[in-house]
């Protein structure tokens, strides 16, 4: 065994962990330390340009400094974000540092002064032995962070994702070392069962129980699969976790593989998440080098091989049996269950598929102990859950909350109080999720969706909708997505999504002809929506078809007045369903100036100069540009 490997065993077993945590603020710093938050979204926001600017600044002035790439706090509205620690001072975090702000910012901070542009200042990491910045809040006092319960995200913005040393510093791999030393696989399963951890992927199956099933299977070969497909694009929490802390995922799958006696781990990840893959690959290399995975880990005669399998973004690939087919190199079509993968899975061997967030949580259980884990959450739903906040949020991003919190609790963090009243609904759970009416904002979000009124988080995507959004348009959007993604194997799902979509489309479009009972036909469509939904829920093969009508049903239940508006009044209050409208030119008022024809993006307006023009309805996309352009009020909307 190499020296490095022996050193690691020593360290993991003996090195004490300091229980005090001061974030980025560190003692004994002699030169400026710059921490840049890198994640896939901050790269798009422009952090790379800012980094270049920082490097240029320091080389030009010839000052010594150290630059670290750290993980992202999960607050999209603060990106691009950097933190700086000057010797003897608390580390201070800045937000929205675009490349043109860098020079001014560094000019002042390097002189231990706050920048002129106060809007850049976010917070400082308080440390009792360092001098603090005046008038800068402690990061733990910021509402955005204070109101969350950040357990999985605790080290976000602090830990360096591309370094195993950084993870070891914050207690990494200790849980795994402890398990290898002291616990049998059965102990691990039992402890996990006691913790009450349940799958975060949507199914909500008890993870400990699932592992035990696989452990009790006598098969000689077993697989452990991490489902990091994150095929629901509106949910980014799993990917954020992997991007910020790939080693924690690896520790988790090692624990899982040990618990079920599997020798092969496959991490299935969507190829669109380039940064996450890159970091995982780097992390795997490091773990191999440190002897934490591979053959004969810590001389325990346990072999665990980890490999990464790339997929390519099809929603249904997230379903566990489809995912297994995809890995086997077949079309990713779900299979009927039972048999469950824990009996017959990948290549016919017993297989456990777990969501990435579940795996992260299992590390917490063993690192901090069962009791500690059970402290957060509510009865039967323990631990925390990550939500991806989208839509009309004032502070979009990824937040972590205890299980059992209400929609209002989340809104308090991500919305300004003055915008509360304009929130019309929240859509929770991704394409197969539900609309939540403000009347239900005080209901708990838990697994226990049987008890009255509690809500179900699905994939954790949390979309805030206000008056400018049309519920029916969003229902249509999700149905369209599901219709495209339906694998086409079972008829209720393939045809059902198609029919639902057709009916909703008809509601949002202008009537074909002006027949009198058109509204009645549309109204009949509403009744059919319910019938079709019921059939789909009862007869579809997999969760996609079973849950596809959720959006439709919940919108029908809570927002029926919007449907009525569309059907009888032909009116979309939010102004989104423009297809209900018809633009026509009033012949007498048109002088034929031709401005509208020039502006029209689709060349839908024709006519000779100085004579009245005409709109070709089939080409018209109802953008309204002509209405704005016309100086003679010659265009009217029907």
């Amino acid at each position: 065994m190499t020296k490095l490997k022996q050193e690691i065993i020593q360290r993991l077993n003996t090195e004490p962990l300091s229980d005090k945590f001061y974030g980025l603020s560190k003692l004994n710093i002699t030169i400026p330390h710059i921490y840049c938050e890198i994640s896939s979204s901050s790269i798009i926001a422009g952090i790379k340009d800012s980094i270049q600017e920082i490097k240029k600044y320091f080389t030009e002035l010839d000052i010594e400094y150290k630059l670290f790439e750290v993980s992202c706090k999960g607050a999209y509205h603060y990106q691009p974000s950097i933190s700086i620690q000057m010797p003897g001072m608390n580390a201070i975090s800045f937000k929205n540092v675009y490349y043109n702000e860098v020079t001014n910012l560094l000019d002042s901070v390097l002189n231990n002064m706050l920048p002129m542009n106060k809007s850049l200042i976010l917070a400082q990491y308080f440390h009792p032995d360092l001098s603090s910045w005046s008038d800068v809040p402690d990061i733990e006092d910021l509402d955005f962070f204070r109101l969350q319960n950040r357990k999985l995200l605790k080290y976000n913005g602090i830990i360096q994702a591309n370094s195993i040393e950084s993870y070891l510093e914050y207690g990494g791999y200790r849980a795994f070392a402890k398990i290898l030393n002291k616990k049998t696989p059965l102990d691990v399963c039992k402890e996990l069962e006691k913790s009450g951890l349940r799958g975060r992927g949507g199914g909500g199956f008890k993870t400990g129980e699932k592992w035990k099933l696989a452990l009790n299977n006598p098969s000689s070969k077993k697989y452990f699969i991490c489902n990091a497909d994150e095929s629901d694009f509106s949910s980014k929490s799993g990917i954020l976790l992997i991007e910020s802390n790939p080693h924690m995922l690896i520790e988790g799958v090692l624990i899982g593989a040990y618990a079920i006696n599997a020798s092969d781990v496959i991490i299935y990840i969507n190829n669109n998440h380039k940064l996450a893959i890159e970091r995982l690959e780097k992390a795997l290399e490091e773990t191999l080098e440190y002897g934490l995975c591979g053959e004969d880990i810590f001389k325990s005669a346990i072999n665990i091989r980890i490999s990464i399998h790339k997929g390519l973004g099809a929603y249904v690939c997230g379903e566990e049996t489809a995912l297994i087919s995809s890995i086997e190199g077949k079309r990713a079509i779900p299979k009927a269950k039972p048999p469950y993968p824990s009996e017959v899975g990948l290549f016919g061997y017993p297989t456990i598929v777990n969501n990435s967030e579940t795996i992260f949580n299992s590390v917490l259980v063993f690192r901090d102990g069962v009791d500690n884990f059970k402290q957060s959450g509510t009865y039967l739903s323990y631990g925390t859950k990550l939500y991806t906040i989208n839509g009309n949020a004032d502070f979009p991003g990824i937040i972590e909350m205890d299980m059992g919190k209400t929609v209002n609790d989340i809104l308090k963090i991500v919305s300004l109080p003055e915008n509360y009243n304009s929130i019309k609904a929240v859509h929770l759970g991704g394409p197969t999720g539900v609309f939540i009416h403000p009347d239900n904002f005080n209901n708990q979000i838990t697994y226990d969706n049987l008890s009255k009124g509690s809500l179900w988080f699905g994939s954790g995507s949390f979309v805030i909708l206000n008056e400018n959004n049309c519920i029916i348009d969003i229902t249509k959007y999700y149905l369209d997505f599901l219709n495209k993604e339906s694998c086409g194997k079972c008829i209720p799902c393939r045809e059902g999504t198609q029919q639902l979509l057709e009916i909703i489309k008809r509601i949002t479009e202008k009537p074909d002809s002006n027949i009198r009972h058109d509204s009645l036909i549309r109204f009949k469509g509403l009744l059919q929506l319910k019938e079709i939904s019921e059939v789909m829920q009862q007869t579809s093969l997999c969760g996609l078809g079973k849950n596809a009508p959720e959006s439709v049903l919940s919108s029908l239940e809570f927002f029926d007045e919007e449907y009525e508006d569309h059907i009888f009044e032909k009116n979309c209050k939010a102004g989104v369903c423009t297809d209900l409208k018809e633009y026509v030119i009033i012949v007498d008022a048109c002088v034929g100036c031709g401005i509208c024809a020039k502006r029209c993006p689709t060349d839908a307006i024709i006519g000779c100069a100085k004579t009245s023009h005409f709109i070709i309805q089939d080409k018209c996309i109802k953008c309204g540009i002509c209405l704005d352009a016309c100086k003679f009020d010659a265009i009217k909307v029907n």
Partner: protein
Amino acid sequence: MEKYLKDLKSEIDRSEILPILIDYQEKFGFLNYDFISALSERANLPAGNIYGIASFYPQFNFSPKAKYNIKLCSGISCHLKNIKELKAEIFKHTKLNSNGFSSDGKYSFEFVNCLGACAQGPVMKINDKHYINLTKMDIIKIFHELE
């Protein structure tokens, strides 16, 4: 392609096909028939099977993209920010046909599902460059530069 094939193993397991296809598309931009048939020989599967695997994933292309490949995000966040107008503006500048290509072959257009910068939407991607917080004016400017 010859060289790529040379570096590939001579016998390919079925489960390796998808990663290979992804890798190939990343390098060459699309999957061509010659490659699929060469792959099918090595994997000992009919070419139709390989095509079947690939066609399951909407992100595989079977024909090359234009010089400027425009991707407009239609993820939920961007959808809520009313991308209809932006789409109209893009169509106006590129004179796209119904197959998503402009008649001069310079532009191709597609909707994609979330480009990963939801807070800075609407987002558009042309080849490898992202454009965030798009407005109609931005699009006019971008196409002015491209022309």
